[in-house]
C-alpha cells in the first residue's frame, strides 16, 4: 500500500476521535475516573487530613446499622419521589392537554406557564417559604378562608415539610413537563383522532385509546427524568432546610451526602453513600426499562 494512502486512512480514522476528544477527556476526567475512584474510596476511612485507611465494608455496615441520618434521608427522598413523580407527571400532562388547544393567545399562555422554569431554585424557595408560612402565608390564609381552622404548618412541621417542597417544585417543574408532553401530543397524527371519531369514539375514548398509547414513549421519558430529578433534589431543600438551626425534616439523601463529604470531611463514608444512591437509582431505572416493553408503544413497533 502506498505510504500516502496509508497515512490518509489513518488520518480518516483518527479525525472523528480528534473531534470527540474534548468530550472523551471531559468524560474521563470528570465522570468515569472519579466514579471508579469513588468506588475505591467507599472502602476507606478518609477525611483529607490523613491517608486513606482501608476499612472494608465498615462504611456500608455503619450506614445500615448505626446511622439514623442515612435511613431518615432515604425515607425523605423516597417520600418525595412517591409524592412528586405522580403529581408532577399528571399535572404536567393536564397542563399540556390544555395548552394543546387551538385557542386565541395560547402561545402566550405557554410562555407564562414556562416562565417559572427559568427562575433560580433558590429564589423560588424563598418565595414559597413566605407563601407557605404557617401563620400568615397566602396559602394558609386561603385555606382558613375555606374554613380549615388549623391548616398545615408546612415547612415548620416535619410531617408537612416534604409535601411543601413538592408544592414548591410544582411551579417550576410544571412548565418543563408541559412543554415535553406538548411536543409528544403534537407528534400524534390528527388522522388517528379523525379515524377514531368516525368510528364513534368520544373524547374520553380518544384520550384513552389514542392519546395515552401514543404518548407512552413521552410518559416513559418523563417518568425516568422525574425520578432522576427526585434523587437530585438539592438547591431548594438546601435553601429552606439546612444551616444553623435546621432540623432533619428536609435532609434529603443528596444533602446528607454533601454534609458527610464537605461539612464533616468524611470522604470515604460519603463515597459509600454515593455508591448506594447509584445502586438504588440504577436499579430503579433498570426495573423501568425492563417493564417498558409491556406498556410503552413506539410508532415503529419496537
Amino acid at each position, binding site marked *: 500500500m502506498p505510504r500516502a494512502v496509508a497515512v490518509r486512512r489513518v488520518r480518516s480514522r483518527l479525525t472523528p476521535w480528534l473531534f470527540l476528544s474534548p468530550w472523551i477527556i471531559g468524560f474521563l476526567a470528570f465522570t468515569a475516573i472519579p466514579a471508579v475512584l469513588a468506588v475505591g474510596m467507599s472502602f476507606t*476511612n478518609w*477525611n*483529607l*487530613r*490523613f491517608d486513606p485507611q482501608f476499612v472494608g465494608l465498615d462504611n456500608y455496615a455503619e450506614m445500615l446499622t*448505626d*446511622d*439514623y*441520618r442515612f435511613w431518615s434521608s432515604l425515607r425523605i427522598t423516597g417520600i418525595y419521589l412517591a409524592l412528586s413523580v405522580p403529581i408532577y407527571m399528571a399535572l404536567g400532562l393536564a397542563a399540556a392537554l390544555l395548552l394543546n388547544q387551538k385557542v386565541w393567545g395560547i402561545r402566550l399562555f405557554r410562555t407564562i406557564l414556562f416562565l417559572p422554569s427559568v427562575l433560580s431554585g433558590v429564589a423560588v424557595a424563598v418565595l414559597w*417559604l*413566605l407563601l407557605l*408560612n*404557617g*401563620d*400568615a*402565608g397566602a396559602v394558609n390564609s386561603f385555606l382558613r378562608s375555606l374554613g380549615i381552622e388549623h391548616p398545615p*404548618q408546612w415547612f*415548620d*412541621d*416535619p410531617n408537612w415539610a416534604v409535601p411543601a417542597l413538592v408544592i414548591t417544585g410544582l411551579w417550576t417543574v410544571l412548565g418543563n413537563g408541559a412543554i415535553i408532553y406538548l411536543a409528544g401530543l403534537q407528534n400524534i397524527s390528527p388522522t388517528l383522532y379523525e379515524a377514531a371519531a368516525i368510528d364513534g369514539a368520544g373524547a374520553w375514548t380518544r384520550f384513552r385509546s389514542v392519546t395515552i398509547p401514543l404518548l407512552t414513549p413521552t410518559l416513559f421519558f418523563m417518568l425516568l427524568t422525574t425520578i432522576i430529578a427526585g434523587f437530585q433534589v438539592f438547591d431548594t431543600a438546601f435553601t429552606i432546610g439546612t444551616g*444553623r*438551626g*435546621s*432540623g*432533619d*425534616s428536609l*435532609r434529603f439523601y443528596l444533602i446528607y451526602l454533601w454534609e458527610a*463529604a*464537605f*461539612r*464533616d*470531611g*468524611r470522604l470515604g463514608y460519603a463515597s459509600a453513600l454515593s455508591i448506594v444512591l447509584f445502586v438504588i437509582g440504577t436499579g430503579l431505572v433498570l426495573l423501568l426499562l425492563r417493564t417498558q416493553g409491556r406498556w410503552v408503544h413506539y410508532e415503529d413497533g419496537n
Partner: protein
Amino acid sequence: MNHTRKVALVVGLSVGVLALSGCSPFSSGGSDSDITLLTLDGGEDNLALEEIVDAFEAQNDGVHIEITYVPEDTYPTKLQTALLADAPDIAAPYGADTMLSFEPIDDLVFDAYDLDPGDYNSVLESFCGLNGKLYCLGTTVGNMGLFYNKAMFDAAGLPYPSSSEAMSFDDFAALAAQLTADGSDSDKVWGAGADIIQAYLNPEHYLDETGRTVDVLNDGYLGTVETLAGMVAAGTFPSSGQTLSVGGSDDGLGLQTMFLEGKLAMFVGDNYAVDSIEATDIQYGLAPVPVVAGDDPWVPVWTNTFGIPLGSAHKDVAADFLAFMATEGQTIQAQYGQMPLLTSVAETWADTEGRQQLVEVSKLAHPGIFNPNIWAWNAPLIDAYKAALRGEPILPLHEDAQPKAQQANDTTWETFDQAVAAAGD
C-alpha cells in the same frame, strides 16, 4: 497537519498546562513578601480586615497580603484542600479539628510579641484554645445577649434586667407576660422572643462533662423547653411562623426585625443587632441570656479566627501580622461596629450605655463543655424543640431525639478523634 501547525499546537498546549499549573491562589511563585490569607467571606466585616491589612502593609515595606474570601458553605472543604496542597500563610481555622493543622501561637505570637492572653475576652480561650494551647486569634467578639426595649419596660412599670446577673427562664416568662400587649398579629407586641435554645443554653444541660454523651432527659433541659413552649401557647412569645411573617425570617434576624419594629419587648439575639438598633430611636439595654434557675450566667461567645497553618511558607511575617491584628488591628476594628477582642479597646469602643452593657455581658463568658461541633449533630434536638413549641408532648419528642443526637454526636467525635490522632503522628 503541517510541521508549523504541529509546533504551534505543542507550544500552545505547553503554555496552557503551565498556566493551569500556576492557577493555585496560594502558589508560592510570588516574592518572599507576598503573603496569602484565606478566610470566610464576612460581608461588611471584610472592610475592617482590609483596613487592618492596608495598615500592616503600610508599616512593612514590600509586604503584600493577598486575601481570598470563601463563602462559609464551601469554606471547610476549601480550607482542608488548601492546607494539604499549598497552604496559605494565614487562614481561618474552622472547627476544633482543623486547629490541629495550625501552629500554636502561644510562643509564636503571644510570647514573642509580649502579649498577654488575659488581656483579651475569654472567647480567645474558649474558641481558639485546644489542649491548653492557643491556635488562633480574632478581631471581634460575638456574643448572645438579651436585648430589651427600655420604653416598653418603663411603660409596664418594670425595672430593667441586670447586666451582670442572669434571670431564670421562669422570670423571663413572667416578664414576657407583663410586657405582652395583645392585638392581632399586625399590631400585637410580644413580650419576648428567642433564637433556638441550642444557640444560648449552657451545653451542660444537654451534654455530660466530657461532651461525648447527650442527655436531654433532665429537668433543666426539659423544664426550659416546657417554659418556652408555655410562653408560645400563652401568646407571649412569637411562634416560628409569626416570627417569619412579622420579622421576615424565623431566626434571630427575624426577631431583631420585630424588635426594631416595636413588635417585641425583649429578645435573645447576637450582638450584631447593636448597630441596627442604634440606627433607630429605640433606647435599648442588654442583659445576659436567661439561664436555668440556680445557674451562673452563661454567655455564648465566638470570634472570627486567624491562625498560621503548619505549612505556611512565611510564618515570621504571618506571626507579625497576627501580632499587629492583636494590637493596632483592634483599634481599627473598633471603628467598624463590632466589639474588638482586646478588652481595653472594647471598653473604649463602648461609647454608649448599650455597648457598655454589651462589654459587661461579654465579660461574663467563660469556657464550658468542649464539643467539636454542636451544630453537626443537634438537628434532632432542634426538631424536638420546634415541635414542642408547636404544642406537641415534650417528653416523647426528646426520648426519640436523644438516641439520634447521640449517634450523630458519636460520629462528630470520631472524626475529631481521628484528626487528633493524625496530628499526633
